[in-house]
């Protein structure tokens, strides 16, 4: 059952900032933002893999690398055994068709001057999905698929609510019959009740169309609910990855523990029970040495300052990148 469709290996992405006058005067090289620092993961066919972490941790950068919006500095992404950044793959549009991305902001990700019908038809034409005469019928089908009324095709994006726009974004992604959907904060901008409707739609379509989903979001409750597996990212590195229920009910990495505990519980009696994380995410311009989390970690020791811990399987849990994972969880 677990065949991986997408293999990501040791992905690094550095954004050079260019040398400032001060750098030139001091003879220093320009500064570099280390957005991804060696991310490896497999996306299995038919699963939903959730990606969580604070803003700036590299969640969206990872999603954008997967759809080739960014080219990684090092490492590879393989799809069907082929490196998607390899020479022969660059010209190949079939990858773009098979792996589709949906974005967070329902107000800027749709062309305001195109009707829904035109937006969907464009996707069909670009990828030669249907001969021209069959396009209108397919557009109707797609609207039905995402539960939008047929008259939606003559309307412009501004005539829709946020939830309806995200349905259009889903229809546009599904128009080209993809195998993998990358959802980057797809429902973050929506109210809870609308969020629930869009998430339900996504889960239904996943069953119906046998889709694999990478679900990037900062809402931990939602990620827990939709995902089979979850990866926790900190400063461009995966610190923990594993089965969603196990990870959420029993997080192993001190960062996962702090992150999950910070999500406010609905029970007023839980007040004051959270472990507060001190400080903020360090800047990816000045990466801490060793374990990226050691500056905020109450378990940090000398080794954490020097060596980057490897992501290793832990008995009865997922894979965890922490030097002290055994002791920390033995106490717990």
């Amino acid at each position, binding site marked *: 059952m677990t065949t991986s469709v997408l293999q990501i290996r040791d992905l690094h992405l550095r954004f050079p900032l260019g040398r400032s006058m001060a750098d030139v005067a001091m003879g220093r090289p320009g500064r570099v933002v280390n957005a991804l620092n060696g991310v490896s993961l497999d996306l299995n066919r038919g699963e*939903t893999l959730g990606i969580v972490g*604070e*803003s700036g941790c590299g969640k969206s950068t990872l999603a954008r690398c997967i759809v080739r919006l960014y080219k990684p500095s090092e490492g590879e992404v393989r799809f069907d055994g082929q490196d998607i950044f390899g020479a022969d793959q660059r010209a190949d549009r079939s990858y773009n068709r098979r792996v589709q991305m949906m974005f967070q902001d329902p107000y800027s990700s749709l062309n305001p001057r195109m009707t829904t019908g035109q937006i969907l038809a464009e996707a069909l034409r670009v990828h030669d999905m249907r001969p021209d005469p069959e396009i209108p019928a397919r557009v109707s089908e797609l609207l039905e698929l995402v539960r939008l009324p047929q008259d939606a095709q003559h309307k412009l994006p501004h005539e829709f*609510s946020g939830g309806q726009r995200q349905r259009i974004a889903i229809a546009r992604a599904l128009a080209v019959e993809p195998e993998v959907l990358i959802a980057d904060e797809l429902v973050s901008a929506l*109210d*809870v*009740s*609308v*969020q*629930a*409707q869009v*998430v*339900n739609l996504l*889960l*239904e379509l996943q069953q119906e169309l046998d889709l694999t989903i990478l679900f990037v979001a*900062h809402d*931990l*409750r*939602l990620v*827990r*609910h*939709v*995902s*089979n597996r979850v990866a926790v990212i900190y400063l461009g590195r995966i610190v923990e990855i594993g089965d*969603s*229920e196990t990870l959420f009910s029993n997080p192993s990495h001190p960062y996962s523990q*702090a*992150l999950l505990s*910070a*999500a*406010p*519980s*609905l*029970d*007023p*009696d*839980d*007040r004051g029970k*959270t472990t*507060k*994380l001190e400080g*903020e*995410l360090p800047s990816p311009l000045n990466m801490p040495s060793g374990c990226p989390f050691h500056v905020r970690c109450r378990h940090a020791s000398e080794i954490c300052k020097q060596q980057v811990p490897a992501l290793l399987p832990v008995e009865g849990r997922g894979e965890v990148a922490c030097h002290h994972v055994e002791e920390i969880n033995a106490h717990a």
Partner: protein
Amino acid sequence: MEHNTPILEVDGLNTTFHRGGQPLPALRDVSFSVARGEVLGLVGESGSGKSVTLRSIIGLARRYGDVTGEVRWQGQDLVQMPDRALRQIQGREIAMIFQEPMTSLNPLLTVGLQLEETLRAHTDLSQSARRDRAIEMLDLVGIPSAAQRLKDYPHQFSGGMRQRVMIAIALAANPKLLLADEPTTALDVTIQAQILDLILRLAQDMDMGVVLVTHDLGVVAQTCDTVAVMYAGRIVEQGSVRGVLKDPRHPYTVGLMRSVPENLPPRTPLYSVPGVPPSLDALPQGCAFAPRCAACVAACTQDRPPLTVVTEGRQVACLNPITKSQGNAA
């Protein structure tokens, strides 16, 4: 939670905007009170009137619409108060923080200048005393090396730090009431926890009342003493946080709580209240929630239910409220 006499009493607040000659009833008959040291949560979905309530209290809404009713503050009615007098209260006695720390700071001025600006407007402090106070405030909200950071511009701060600066500016003049409009919505959960902690601690230390607008019921559960749930411009349920969240009586509150994905088998359909909130220019006769309500009875489409006391300290605007056992079964 025991509190002394209210410092703010909102009584029958109505706010109406106009679009194309048509009246839009954004707020109807909103009444609540806040005591010193009390944190009141206002929850609801987009467009329910949470932000308009804050803006109507502090006099920002009257420039764009008609505000009627009473907002009693220190023996005066803020709704009737002339602009000039109101400005003595805005920022001095009642402060407000907004959702967007990115857009509510002036990008061209240092944060020190923006802090001192507030102090110059609202206090009699000398220039050097203002500077000391500015450093003290940045320190209070947990910004490291406060004295150096006074010279920094907003873009040199992270999102969480900018929101701390906003809080420092809001609290600089020692207000008695803080109106906070989704102060942590743009922030990460870890930073959200820090900022909410900060607001709570300062509210206690300064014996200040807080009205916290949020759409996150988790934030309400962990931060507020009392809560008012809003729907289509009206308060539909209010009471203590523990009471409302553990034993919601209004069908909308129940629906809102059920749509939060918690304690559900993974990957099962999430609950969502059927339908969408009504448009303000086409509010149904009777209860605004009736068309979406499972507990709707014939009278609901005729008469608008008033906010009435159902149990000690709890008010619900519903003709057919949920009882405890039903709430748990649903």
